[in-house]
């Protein structure tokens, strides 16, 4: 064993880049909410980009290492300490057997990624080590970590010199006034034009119900629907549809009041209409939003969405090239 969990944090899980291929069976992708930060943490310890790491949200865990190890922490701005001494994040660090990794209070962002050289060794389930708690799948016993859990690591692949770092300008955070870019979608035409404009004009706040399944937002005006007859099987609420697939990033608005953006642990389907989809390039950003943070949704075109996707890939490529 290499890691002993002394305090688990709020909801710390083992994650890699996820489990594609089973969405039609109700099993979502899972994997890191902020994939770029996850990949960066892995690169800093000489792992492959998609090796399994720990993802902690809002509150960091406390971990005693039982063997010497090389680690790195990326993602949210949360002070990192080894035996109480504050050290740099986004940097390769050596930790010795019996030393304790802990964290201070979160300053910005939401999720940190703790990579250990070799990667966390949990069984591969349906092609991935990611934890999907709702399905009790993957990770450490299919659940969030608890105090007393012991985790092993796999043999390191490449040696990384302590002190290696990712330049601050290549790190990405939520910023002070985050904007989520949206492609209007399947059922956009079911709300009135004024409601559509209001959705993009209003400032929204991240609700406390914000987790790996989805992020809920409140504070904007309720949507007004274009009158219509509900189809057989859909129910009488105008925000209901006959159950359909929810793609990642899709924005459902139950009752027309509070939009929910589905994330990596999305439910694969359900009976709420979707007004659009957050573009793929902005999904990592959602994973770094905190409750009560103010957010705006901005309408983009497909070409703008694809250009943003290219930009995000270029950022990842620059980080990769620096190793």
């Amino acid at each position, binding site marked *: 064993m290499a890691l002993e969990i002394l305090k688990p944090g709020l909801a710390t899980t083992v994650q890699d880049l996820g489990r*594609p*291929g*089973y*969405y*039609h*069976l*109700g*099993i979502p992708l899972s994997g890191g909410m902020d994939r770029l930060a996850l990949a960066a943490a892995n690169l800093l310890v000489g792992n492959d980009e998609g090796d399994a790491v720990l993802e902690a949200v809002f509150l960091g865990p406390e971990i005693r290492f039982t063997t010497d190890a090389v680690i790195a922490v990326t993602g949210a701005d949360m002070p990192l300490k080894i035996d109480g001494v504050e050290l740099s994040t986004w940097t390769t660090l050596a930790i010795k057997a019996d030393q304790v990794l802990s964290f201070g209070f979160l300053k910005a962002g939401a999720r940190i990624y703790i990579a250990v050289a070799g990667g966390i060794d949990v069984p591969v*389930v*349906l092609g991935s080590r990611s934890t*999907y708690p*709702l*399905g*009790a*799948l993957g990770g450490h016993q*299919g659940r969030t970590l608890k105090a007393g859990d012991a985790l092993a690591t796999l043999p390191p692949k490449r040696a990384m010199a302590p002190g290696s770092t990712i330049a601050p300008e290549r790190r990405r955070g939520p910023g002070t006034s985050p904007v989520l870019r949206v*492609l*209007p*979608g*399947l059922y*956009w*035409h079911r709300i009135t034009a004024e409601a559509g404009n209001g959705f993009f004009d209003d400032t929204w706040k991240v609700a406390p119900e914000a987790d790996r399944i989805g992020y809920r937002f409140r504070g904007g005006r309720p949507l007004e629907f274009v009158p219509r007859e509900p*189809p*057989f*099987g*859909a*129910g009488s609420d105008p925000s209901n*549809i*006959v*159950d*359909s*697939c929810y*793609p*990642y*990033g*899709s924005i459902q608005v139950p009752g027309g009041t509070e939009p929910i953006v589905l994330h990596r642990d999305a*439910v*694969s*389907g*359900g009976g709420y209409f*979707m007004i*659009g*989809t*957050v*573009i*793929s*390039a902005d999904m990592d950003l959602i994973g770094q939003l905190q409750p009560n943070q103010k957010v705006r949704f901005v309408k983009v*075109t*497909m*070409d703008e*969405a*694809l250009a943003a*996707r290219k930009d995000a890939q270029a950022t990842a490529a620059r980080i990769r090239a620096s190793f």
Partner: protein
Amino acid sequence: MNEPVARRDVFPRIAACGDCALAIEFAEHIDEAVNARVIALATALADCPIAGIEEMVPTYRSLMVLYDPEIVSGRVLRQTLATRLAGLAVGRTPLRRFRVPVLYGGAAGLDLAELAAMKNMTPADLIEMHASADYRVYMIGFAPGFVYLGGVPEALHTPRLPQPRQHIAAGSIGLGGQQASINSVPGPSGWRFLGRTPVRVFDPARPQPFLLRAGDRVRFQPISLEEATRLDVAVAAGEIGMTAEGAL
């Protein structure tokens, strides 16, 4: 140029759902022929794949396609799918039939008595009606292995609860609107529940984690508490616990 957003409910329609997904919607209501077309398209795309499609999610009335825009552009994919759609033939695929044992009432039958009262039936009448219907698996999804069924007798159509319950056990047998369910994992639900099956429609520890797929036919078989207890033990030991009634 923006991708055209579907403005009207004209079917079939192909619409972008973000920059990595397209939905092919055949209709907006529950209909067996519509679901057969959804499955036929998914089958055709599985048999003769389009490069760039990563996952396909069939639902009651639409097929969601997740794709990699670095391999195929949404515009090209939309056109290719429209061509495939135009030539789509709904073949006669062999049906699989299953009989799922259900212990009606008891601790898992949270809403049996109230629902029977709402419908002016005795619980026994309601059970008989629920168990005599022929259901079609329209879709797997929402949660891992969750079974969405259509074919609910009209007399049993029931509005969902105003407030969802926080914990519904795996194996619960539910009704929501015109839909029925076999719940696969524990979780919250606003549906109404009549009983439970010892069968685990989803079990990641089993070599075959999922027992049912879209297009399958299901009937419910009322069982006694003794039989349910016996099946619980058998299922825990790795048995499937339900019988296939063979292809039609």
